[in-house]
């Protein structure tokens, strides 16, 4: 387990450095930068000699490698430099914007997971086939509606129409609900889609039939077999949807006028504010890496076989086995159902 964790941490650090360096190079390769844009803007009216003063002040007259090394050295000291359009320290700008975005994405993630769970379960266990099919079509619907449309509709009905929620962020929890639901819908769509098919697949597995043959009811089978087995792909996707969250936050924050990382990014992109963008890339990468690290660390908890020798077999093809067995069985035995019944079968459902 320790090597596994160390390896994952090493990878995470490497990903961070690579993202920082790559974004630095890419952003530098773009034509123009924030200061040059300011100088060229007709509004600025800056003469070429005066432009030199600005470029020197911001250190943009130095060679690229020197700028990169300075930035990297600063980064190790926790200093991300100053914004070229705002003049404030990047750490401060991100510090003010981050709490709002974390609240939004955190709540959206919770909503997303709840939506996915409800849809996944309803689509598989609802009493009528018509209802099941109807619910199963929701993910495709919400997956194809752009976030900003959902957001604008929300505003139209709940804010301008019913005056239930403020149209722009006023710091209250109520103001957070609508954007969080909007963003939650965005990430719930793929999660729900995967979850419901995953449940469907797992329910078709032989070991579930055996459970039923032993007299377990649906609820018991779901709790003891289906849930755990069908949650692995969802977990993987959850790590990936972190990226969706960050991207979706940009649009959602613009629609609901929330001062967060998303709005900061839009501003920084449009003015090519390199230090701020670098900071945002860094924060996004940290978030992404952290979430995926957590997901990686959660795998073995759900599926102990992952730690055995690094060879993970296809999820959903497996048979329940006690985690304690230290060896992997031969392939021809793998298909044979393990007929041992889980503990604590209620007495009344044992054989007549």
């Amino acid at each position, binding site marked *: 387990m320790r090597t596994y964790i160390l390896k994952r941490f090493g990878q995470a650090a490497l990903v961070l450095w690579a993202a920082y360096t790559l974004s630095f190079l890419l952003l530098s390769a773009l034509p123009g930068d924030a200061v040059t844009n300011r100088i060229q803007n007709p509004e600025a009216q800056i003469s070429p000699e005066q432009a030199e003063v600005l470029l020197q002040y911001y250190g943009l007259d130095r060679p690229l490698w020197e700028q990169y090394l300075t930035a990297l050295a600063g980064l190790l000291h926790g200093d991300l430099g100053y914004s070229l359009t705002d*003049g*404030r320290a990047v750490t401060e700008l991100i510090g003010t914007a981050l709490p709002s975005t974390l609240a939004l994405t955190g709540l959206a993630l919770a909503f997303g997971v709840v939506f996915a769970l409800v849809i996944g379960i309803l689509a598989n266990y609802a009493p009528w086939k018509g209802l099941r099919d109807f619910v199963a079509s929701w993910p495709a619907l919400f997956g194809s509606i752009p976030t900003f449309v959902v957001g604008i509709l929300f505003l139209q009905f709940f804010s301008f129409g019913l005056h239930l929620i403020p149209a722009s962020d006023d710091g209250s929890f109520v103001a957070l609900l609508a954007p969080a639901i909007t963003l939650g819908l965005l990430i719930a769509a793929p999660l729900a889609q995967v979850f419901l098919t995953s449940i469907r697949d797992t329910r078709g597995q032989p070991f579930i039939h055996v459970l039923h043959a032993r007299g377990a009811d649906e609820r018991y089978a779901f709790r003891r077999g289906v849930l755990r087995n069908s949650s692995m792909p969802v977990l993987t996707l959850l790590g990936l949807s972190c990226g969706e969250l960050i991207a979706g936050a940009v649009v959602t924050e613009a629609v609901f006028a929330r*001062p967060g990382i998303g709005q900061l990014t839009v501003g920084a992109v449009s003015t090519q504010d390199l230090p701020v963008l670098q900071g945002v890339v860094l924060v996004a990468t940290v978030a992404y890496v952290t979430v995926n690290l957590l997901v990686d660390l959660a795998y073995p908890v759900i599926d102990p076989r992952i730690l055995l020798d690094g060879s993970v077999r296809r999820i959903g093809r497996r048979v329940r086995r006690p985690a304690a067995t230290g060896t992997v069985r031969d392939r021809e035995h793998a298909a044979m159902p393990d007929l041992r019944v889980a503990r604590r079968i209620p007495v009344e459902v044992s054989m007549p």
Partner: protein
Amino acid sequence: MPNEKGRTLVFATRFRRTMLSSATVAVIATALTACGGGASDQPVGDPVSGGTLTFYDPVEYNAWKPTNSIWSNSQVSNNLAERLIWQDPKTGEYRPWLAESYQVSDDHLAYTFKLKPGVTFSDGTLLNAEVVKLNFDQHGFGNEKLGITQDPFWTDYAGTDVVDDQTVVVRLAKPNAGFIQILSNYRASSILGKSLLEKDLNGQSDLRNWVGTGPFVVESVNGTTGVTLKRRDDYNWAPDGSAHTGKAYLDRIVFKTVPEAGTRVGALQSGEAQIARNIAPYDEETVTAGGGKLLPISVQGETNDLTVRLDNPASPLQDKQVRLALQAATDRAAINEAVLSPNYPIPTSALVKGTPLRGDSSKYLNHDLAKATSLLDAAGWRPGADGIRVEDGKRLSIHLRVAPYYQVSQSVLEVLRSQWREAGVEIKITSPSLTEYEAQEQTADDWFLTQGQTSTAEPSVLRTSYGSDRQDVLEKSPADAQLDALLAAQSYEFDTAKRKAAIQAVEDRIFGEAYSIPLYDETQVFGLASNVQGFTTESTGRSWFYDTWISG
């Protein structure tokens, strides 16, 4: 005007405005009948003190240093910092503000100001001659060590002498009839406190460090998207033209960036915001239908036009006849009808309605399709197979880039495209992002026309734009010497009537050569809730909340 792209991301935009050396009359001529700019909202009933006003603006805030910022920031900071001289937005007259009186030497090279006594900055320090000198020196000379650039408004600045605590003499190397206007203008002459001026560019760009003499002070700054100002209770030196004296009415003003146009209009209706800036023409009816008021303010200075750029010898617009034809093919009334609103005046001059001493050039700006076609025929451009004119195998096709600074750019250009098409001229429209736009401006070889304007409530704004030693928008080589001479002449003309004639001569030259194709008069449209009273702006549409109050 900041444009908004509600479709995808909303880009922070900048207002293309400059206020360079401009020229007005040092001695006020009350005979001036300039009006229209800086309209204000007529208050009803007795002013009420107190309350919070919320103001929604589409653009995110940038760094705050006035000489190195964007126009939309000044919606906030114009209420924090003041000038020695106040310009009446309605009449163009100058009145005392932080200076109680001033004198100009006979050679127009020395301006002596007597400061108002008892004026204090928000940190409690006194306004004195030394602080004024410090401000002007930073503008006139810049400060390399602090990263402060020299301010182009202050060309020909020779220095400021402190005579005594309340008296300063500002000296120029060359006379400039527009210098008083510069001293009245937010960007070029706001008087800020000593502690702020000692900071470097980043320090001066942080609004929380600001120390001014204005009726409001900064209470809090929220990232790049929000600012809260609170009233200063010991304020008592409002400009002479104000509706009241003493402190302001409002307790607080909350400024907030709300990029989405629909959200701003909706918030106005629901009472969440009391003022929203940049109401799009198509949203105007929604505002009035919801019980709100519209306050259109002409932004004094140049009209929003297509300015010819002549740096490429291969440009079909090198031919004056072609330029005159395009002028005649442009139907400004139809543009206004189609995509603007009656709040946007139709251009009849190179300057916006309300700008002092503006000329009358309506005779150059008539729509006349027959004239356009015959001019193009005579110039050798014949209609080709698809109706677009051709000469020597070259199509008469012009690439226009939508200027990212204005809200209505794209729709205006689309209407223009159909108008020019009738004369057999093709327009190709692209909308590059702000940075792409600015990069292409430097490098593209098919940049024949530039959309935009420069704003100052002063006719010498034309010199700022067209002067070959200034912005040189024409990029003509060799430069148009006659135009340059006319532009310089009006700067040294201190007699009002003569100066008006000099401005008309400049306009005659500009339109005689068809250097500029005006599209519409640059206008700021504010949406006001019905309970907002006495909201005004200075001459180029910057908010001034001193007289504003909220009725119960």
